């Protein structure tokens, strides 16, 4: 029952994160659209980077904005979706393995770690985290 509650909470958190990422994508597209409309209606502006001194005019920004929306923004949002999914997947596996750790029964733990751990749950968590790190960060070829 606790696992079901934890998975539901995880699902809710991830859906919130996905919605926020999608809102950011939509809001940014809208903001660029408003900028484009303002320029088309004759508003002018310039932006000076106070670090580099580079000045960007409204005409230059309008030219760049299409690429920003069609490429960078879309790619960045897609990467964010992947990051959120990866995080969800690892957290789901962690919840599952902590609840059903017997699939890791063949793993060995240094005796020092057992002595340092306050209880069995802490040792289980260490083993689960270690396994997840290996799964997520080792090279595919390995």
């Amino acid at each position, binding site marked *: 029952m606790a696992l079901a509650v934890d998975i539901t909470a995880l699902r809710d958190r991830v859906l919130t994160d996905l919605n926020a990422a999608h809102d950011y994508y939509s809001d940014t597209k809208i903001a660029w659209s408003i900028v484009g409309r303002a320029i088309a209606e004759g*508003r*002018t*502006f*310039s*932006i*000076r*980077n*106070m*670090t580099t001194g580079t000045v960007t005019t409204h005409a230059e920004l309008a030219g760049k904005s299409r690429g920003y929306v069609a490429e960078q923004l879309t790619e960045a949002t897609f990467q964010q979706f992947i990051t959120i999914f990866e995080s969800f997947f690892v957290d789901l596996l962690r919840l599952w393995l902590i609840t059903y750790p017997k699939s890791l029964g063949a793993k060995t733990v240094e005796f020092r770690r057992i002595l340092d751990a306050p209880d069995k749950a802490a040792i289980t968590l260490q083993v689960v985290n270690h396994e997840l790190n290996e799964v997520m960060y080792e090279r595919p070829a390995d």
Partner: protein
Amino acid sequence: MTDATTHQRLRVSTDGTAGPYIAVPVSQLEEVKALLNRNGIRYLVDENAISLDGKPEIAVINLGRGANAPSVQNILDGNR
């Protein structure tokens, strides 16, 4: 403190979700930064200054989410 370009009172704005900020003409930026420094106020100046319709460039000083906007406003008001 008064905005040198609009002659209006410089205001600490609290709209948005990124914490209070001060929009200040670039010509006054160093003066405002010095005032904040003297009062131990932490801040971060936006990298870009924007000029709209040929008006003076405006820089944005971000005070951070934890900033005490009324206190900073008092500091600005006290420096006339």
